[in-house]
């Protein structure tokens, strides 16, 4: 039956049955009435098949004279990533049962919603290497802040060591969330050569007063942190390791933070099938170990059986939520992003383990290609020596804003100037290369940089 059968639900057995009952041997026999010479031989005169991303790109190019598309090359990331989203995601979430629904107030009546959340939790646990995921939170920054509050409930210790290489906006949200009577934030500097959190400084700051150490991997500079040894140090001092992230896709190839001993893993799920869309709505991911589940904010969906022994889903541990515990709830700002969580669920399940790994590898290899291209450009160099995923920092010998303006003329969104977050990095650009960037776009970007730096 070949490719033909991909779009037709009948199995080969079905077809055989049907042919048999009308007394012919093969499908071609049905066309016997047409004289041989009028029958088409060979294959249709069509171009080779395209993958979904290539097909969409082709169609967009065709429509662009009528509908001016954006046509820009994207090298921006820093917490909001331009990834390919399979059409099935928007097609499924556009069902009105999903997109009009708010938190179900009688949750058990919405078995479909609960099952989707349950599947989400399972997938996110697999992605992060943790035991329990909540039913999602508002966004990456607030998830990480909730993780910091959670660590205080668990350790009752006051100090929190926060890496300077955590997304600067996440840092600001953490500072806004904490109660200064209960917790104190101490910054761990980053290593100026490697772009990683400075491990020596971390060891110096670590004490019995430290409840948690907060890192992000890959960190804001795109650099992969060495979580394992840091986790061991933190645990020896009786504290908890909180691993943040803004690029969830990295875990397609990186060892999940759970394996490196993280006690709480919290971050942003936008990369998993959610469009950049002007900054939101996004998806907050928060996972932990089972022994800490009673300190975890937000809700959790559990699997159970009903009176007849049939599988069903319920809200679990909801007794610690605000509608029951009021001001003593584990969190009063734990908005569940149901629809975005569903998008991530569909995205992850349609990519599968292999697909996710492939996309992650594409990000890595394109970013590595861009690193190579840029290191040949005069007046431009890589700022840090450590391994990265799909983001990296470059140092340029000209005012970054001016360089970006030159690139913008060629419709290239060339990167993010870091000066507003790190005054000492005032000649630096954070560059992101996802699977959406074509090789020739990377070449154009490097050429444009070369011209701008002449």
């Amino acid at each position, binding site marked *: 039956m070949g490719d033909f059968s991909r779009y037709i639900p009948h199995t080969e057995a079905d077809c055989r049955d049907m042919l048999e009952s009308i007394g012919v041997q093969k499908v071609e026999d049905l066309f016997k009435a047409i004289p041989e010479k009028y029958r088409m031989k060979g294959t249709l005169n069509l171009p080779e098949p395209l993958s979904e991303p290539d097909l969409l790109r082709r169609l967009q190019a065709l429509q662009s004279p009528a509908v001016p598309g954006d046509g820009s090359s994207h090298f921006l990331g820093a917490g909001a990533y331009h990834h390919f989203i399979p059409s099935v995601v928007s097609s499924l979430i556009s069902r009105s049962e999903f997109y009009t629904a708010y938190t179900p107030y009688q949750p058990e009546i919405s078995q479909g919603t609960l099952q989707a959340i349950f599947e989400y939790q399972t997938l996110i646990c697999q992605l992060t290497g943790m035991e329990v995921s909540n039913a999602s939170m508002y966004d990456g920054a607030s998830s990480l802040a909730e993780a910091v509050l959670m660590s205080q409930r668990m350790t009752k210790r006051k100090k929190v060591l926060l890496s300077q290489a955590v997304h600067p906006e996440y840092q600001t949200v953490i500072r806004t969330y904490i109660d200064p009577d209960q917790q104190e934030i101490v910054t761990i500097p980053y290593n100026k050569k490697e772009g990683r959190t400075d491990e020596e400084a971390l060891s110096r700051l670590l004490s019995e007063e430290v409840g948690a150490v907060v890192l992000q991997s890959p960190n804001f500079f795109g650099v992969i942190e060495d979580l394992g040894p840091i986790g061991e140090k933190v645990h020896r001092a009786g504290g908890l390791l909180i691993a943040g992230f803004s690029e969830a896709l990295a875990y397609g190839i990186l060892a999940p933070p759970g394996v490196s001993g993280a006690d709480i893993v919290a971050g942003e799920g936008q990369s998993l099938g959610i469009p950049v869309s002007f900054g939101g709505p996004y998806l907050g991911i928060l996972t932990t170990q089972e022994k800490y589940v*009673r300190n975890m904010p937000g809700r959790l969906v559990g699997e159970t059986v009903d009176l007849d022994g049939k599988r069903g889903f319920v809200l679990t541990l909801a*007794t*610690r939520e605000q509608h*029951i*515990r009021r001001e*003593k709830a584990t969190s009063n700002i734990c908005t569940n992003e149901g629809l975005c969580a569903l998008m991530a669920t569909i995205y992850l399940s349609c990519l599968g383990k292999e697909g996710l790994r492939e996309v992650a590898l594409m990000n890595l290899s394109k970013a590595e290609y861009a690193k190579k291209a840029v290191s040949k450009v005069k007046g431009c160099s890589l700022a840090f020596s450590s391994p990265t995923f799909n983001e990296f920092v470059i140092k340029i010998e000209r005012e970054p804003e001016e360089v970006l303006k030159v690139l913008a003329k060629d419709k290239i969104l060339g990167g993010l100037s870091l000066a507003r977050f790190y005054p000492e990095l005032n000649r630096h650009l954070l560059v992101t290369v996802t699977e959406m960037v074509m090789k020739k776009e990377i070449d154009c970007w490097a050429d444009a940089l070369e011209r701008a730096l002449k």
Partner: protein
Amino acid sequence: MEFREGLLYTESHEWVKEEGDTVTIGISDYAQCQMKDVVYVEMPEIGAEFKKGDSIGVVESVKTVADIYSPVSGKVVETNLALKDHPQFINEDPFGKGWIVKIAVRDKGELKGMLSAKDYRKSLPEE
């Protein structure tokens, strides 16, 4: 429902049994009836110090989560570890196997303001 004699009660539904310098604390039969099946009990650490009225732990049931308030000031000397695996002891035997914590009392005068079994019963809403 039992209102065991010889114990002291609080309006927040804890019971207290005086034994020399220490007191044993649990929650009343009435309280466990209201809460329904207890699924988890969070207890303080040995040696932790509390003031009268502080929350010393949490009882979680299928229906709600309630704080346990210390009726006295003092230091925790023992907690009922059996509750970790058998939280249902609170439902089955609230005055016996369901005890929660023992505290070394700093000022026995604090016990004076507590309710007798009879007064505690009277303080409850009529069913």
